[in-house]
């Protein structure tokens, strides 16, 4: 056993059966009482976790993976209950153990790290004291040596200057640092089992790798077992011994990590595996073998009604990317500065969630960048949060004004037109955007039909009637949105369907340039695969150019001809997708690529 752990009744029990698994879940069914009756969240789940083993539970949203892990800790909220089955953790019947016994287990024998590290910490208590609370609770320290022990733990999770950070509040630390604190909390009492619930979602890819490497190292060192809950099959395969795939509350497949990519058995696993972006594949490879949802271009040969601006000729030309093509968008020495927070109007500062380190008065979000997008070309703009990619795209979109620099669109200088006047400019319809969060980008009071019709009514010269209806129906068909969903409101549609509406709205005016702002970041991987293919197909068909803003180099590589890598407002590398992904020149790009989890293929 581990040195510090007290020899308690439970520990004694464990040692009676040294060969048994640490955690065993049999036929677990969890139900939730909701307003619409009882909903089964998890059904007949079996899992076994040996000592020192790392098990990945993979599934898309609603698969029941988080519920399973919460049930193991017995921290389900009030509405949930174990309807059937058993959970045995080192000989203890978790389903029936008294609450006091569970409390002793939590934190000391089993612990958990969470998705959003900043929210997982008490905002008004110093991190040192929060870790200290756990140590004191489980009698791992007393009032005299608690600070010393906490600092020791902070050192173990590689927090620099731990004495200072002991007194820090969560809001004073970065996201990655907060996640280290959460890990420190979870490891403070050297538990036997650690459950990591999407521990890296929302973190930048380089931070993500650092956090995962740290977790792996610390848990291995201590001989701990780990349950890794994730939506990312690649991450699970890279860090786990065994991977369990869940779909709609059921386990569809459990297999060793090295086998799950090589030889997936269940059709859902195959679909999930194929949809995971990885090196050396094409967009088509993301889709399941048997194409089901998206209408392939071949089934849809009708030319675009009416609009002659983009002909078949243009779209064939568009596919010939690169050399000799005319620049559609030219950005020169673009600069955007913001005043730092703490300026006179503290009254207004609450409106913007700006996080500005208080070094100077002025913060340069975009620091003099230049690039081009040619006709029919897809350019990826990649970087981690705060690199200035979204600011750049919003300026190019002409929603905000740059501080300096020139933007030429199709030969016309559009940076001279103030953002607020651009709404009425004839060029407005030719630059469109697909937003990051499909839910948030749809007016909750508009039906799908009305949302798609909006640009046509405002800028397409249409005013209702049969022609508008026909155009909306045509657009819906192009994006693969079933006609019977057009009457629905956003809250009645799925994420993928909402994404399609967003795309239909963006292409309604036959734009020349579409800016894709992380269009798939909020979607499950299988939906992402379909949406990426749809975007590619539409581009081929309509001859548009894309400026694809993303944090994910792999996804960008799949869709884009060229990639621009940004860091701290500057461009660090630019080149063809293949060149940047296969032979990155800049150290930062290399770091980005290395940070993407590499499943053992």
């Amino acid at each position, binding site marked *: 056993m581990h040195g510090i752990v007290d020899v308690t009744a439970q520990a004694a029990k464990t040692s009676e059966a040294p060969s048994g698994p640490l955690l065993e879940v049999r036929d677990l069914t969890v139900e939730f009482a909701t307003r619409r009756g009882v909903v089964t969240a998890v059904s007949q789940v079996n899992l076994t976790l040996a000592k020192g083993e790392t098990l990945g539970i993979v599934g898309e949203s609603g698969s029941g993976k988080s519920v399973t892990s919460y049930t193991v800790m017995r921290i389900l909220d009030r509405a949930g209950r174990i309807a059937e089955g058993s959970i045995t953790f080192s000989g203890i019947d978790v389903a029936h153990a008294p609450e006091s016994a569970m409390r002793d287990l939590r934190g000391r024998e089993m612990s958990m790290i969470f998705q959003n590290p900043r929210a997982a910490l008490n905002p008004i208590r110093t991190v040192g004291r929060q870790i200290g609370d756990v140590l004191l609770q489980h009698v791992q320290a007393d009032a005299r040596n608690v600070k010393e022990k906490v600092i020791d733990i902070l050192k173990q999770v590689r927090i620099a200057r731990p004495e200072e950070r002991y007194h820090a509040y969560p809001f004073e630390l970065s996201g990655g640092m907060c996640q280290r604190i959460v890990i420190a909390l979870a490891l403070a009492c050297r538990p036997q089992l650690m459950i990591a619930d999407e521990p890296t979602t929302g973190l930048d890819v380089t931070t993500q790798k650092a956090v995962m490497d740290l977790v792996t190292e610390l848990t291995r060192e201590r001989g701990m077992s780990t349950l890794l809950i994730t939506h990312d099959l690649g991450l699970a395969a890279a860090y786990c011994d065994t991977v369990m795939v869940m779909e709609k509350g059921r386990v569809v497949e459990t297999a060793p990590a090295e086998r799950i990519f090589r030889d997936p058995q269940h059709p859902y696993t195959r679909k999930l595996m194929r949809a995971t972006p990885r090196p050396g594949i094409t967009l088509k490879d993301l889709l399941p073998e048997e194409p089901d949802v998206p209408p392939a271009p071949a089934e849809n040969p009708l030319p675009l009604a009416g609009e002659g601006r983009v002909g078949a000729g243009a779209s064939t030309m568009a596919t010939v990317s690169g050399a000799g093509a005319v620049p559609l968008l030219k950005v020169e020495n673009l600069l955007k500065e913001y005043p730092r927070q703490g300026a006179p109007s503290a009254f207004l500062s609450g409106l913007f969630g700006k996080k500005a380190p208080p070094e100077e008065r002025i913060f340069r979000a975009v620091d003099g960048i230049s690039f081009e997008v040619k006709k029919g070309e897809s350019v990826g703009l990649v970087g981690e949060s705060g690199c200035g990619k979204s600011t750049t795209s919003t300026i190019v979109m002409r*929603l905000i004004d740059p501080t300096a620099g020139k933007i030429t669109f199709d030969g016309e200088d559009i940076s001279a037109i103030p953002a607020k006047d651009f*709404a009425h400019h004839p060029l*407005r319809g030719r630059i469109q955007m697909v937003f990051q969060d499909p839910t948030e980008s749809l007016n909750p*009071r*508009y039906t799908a039909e009305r949302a798609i*019709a909006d*640009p046509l009514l*405002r800028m397409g010269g249409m005013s209702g009637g049969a022609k508008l209806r026909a155009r909306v129906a045509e657009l819906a068909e192009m994006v693969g949105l079933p006609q019977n969903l057009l009457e629905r409101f956003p809250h009645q549609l799925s994420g993928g369907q909402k994404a399609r509406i*967003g795309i239909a*709205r963006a292409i309604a005016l036959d734009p020349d340039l579409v800016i894709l702002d992380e269009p798939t970041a909020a979607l499950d991987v299988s939906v992402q695969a379909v949406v990426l293919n749809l975007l590619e197909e539409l581009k081929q068909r309509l001859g548009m150019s894309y400026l694809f803003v993303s944090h994910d180099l792999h996804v960008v590589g799949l869709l884009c001809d060229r990639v621009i890598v940004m860091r701290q407002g500057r461009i660090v590398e630019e080149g063809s997708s293949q060149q940047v992904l296969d032979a990155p020149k800049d150290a930062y790009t290399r770091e980005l690529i290395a940070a993407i989890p590499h499943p053992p293929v």
Partner: protein
Amino acid sequence: MTLATADTPAPRGLAATLAHARYVISDNPVTGIAFGMFLVLVVCALLGPFIVPYDPLASDTAAALQAPSAAHWFGTDNLGRDIFSRVIVATRLDMAIAVFSVALVFAAGGIAGIASGFFGGWTDRIIGRISDTIMAFPLFVLAMGIVAALGNTVTNIVIATAIINFPLYVRVARSEAAIRRQAGFVQAARLTGNSEWRILLTTILPNIMPIMMVQMSLTMGYAILNAAGLSFIGLGVRPPTPEWGIMVAEGAAYIVSGEWWIALFPGLALMFAVFCFNLLGDGLRDIVDPQRRT
């Protein structure tokens, strides 16, 4: 032609809203009860003078200070006036004060708040400064000051009540508009060539409306309390006009000698009205909450 008229929710949406309202009421009977109470208030306000048994102003000294009986359900006051009749007839005046002041502040505060949240900058600073200044006073005290200064009339009670509620409306409308100012669907509306004012009116306003309606219902109760409080201390409504606040004031002197009914019934009427609007506000909140719709 759902498309051309679709700025307002399509009929399907309206039907769905009604269905949802029905569902909420059946699911939450309290809202149903509140709605019933509201109907009672409306009937009393509209038909009050026609349905009461006695003239609310006619005094009958022979019948003064009678306890509730079959003839006088709520008893009589020191001048022998029938309290039941006075309480019912007073509904119209009390409701009118509340309705007009809420309508006034809804228009002024709502627009100011939305503009403030949506445009930001100087608009926001000026409107913010005005509401901060109002908020720097204890609100009822400010209302007293305003009525005393503008003159002791019912109209000025309406104005004072509207003014003290102004910051509340500004705050709600401002924060709702500010949240949505950078929302994806507002950005999308900009991309489709909508001007800022058009976005404000067709995109922001309809989305904020439900929350403002809840706010209206909740402040109705507060407006009634405020107006009654002002007339209780002798501002605004003059005797012998039947009004709940002043009637409680008239009954206050008799409480210590045990004639409880003079103050009790108008007080209960006040409570009934305020309670009704508070319940209704809570219920409306559930109805307009899209998260709870199916």
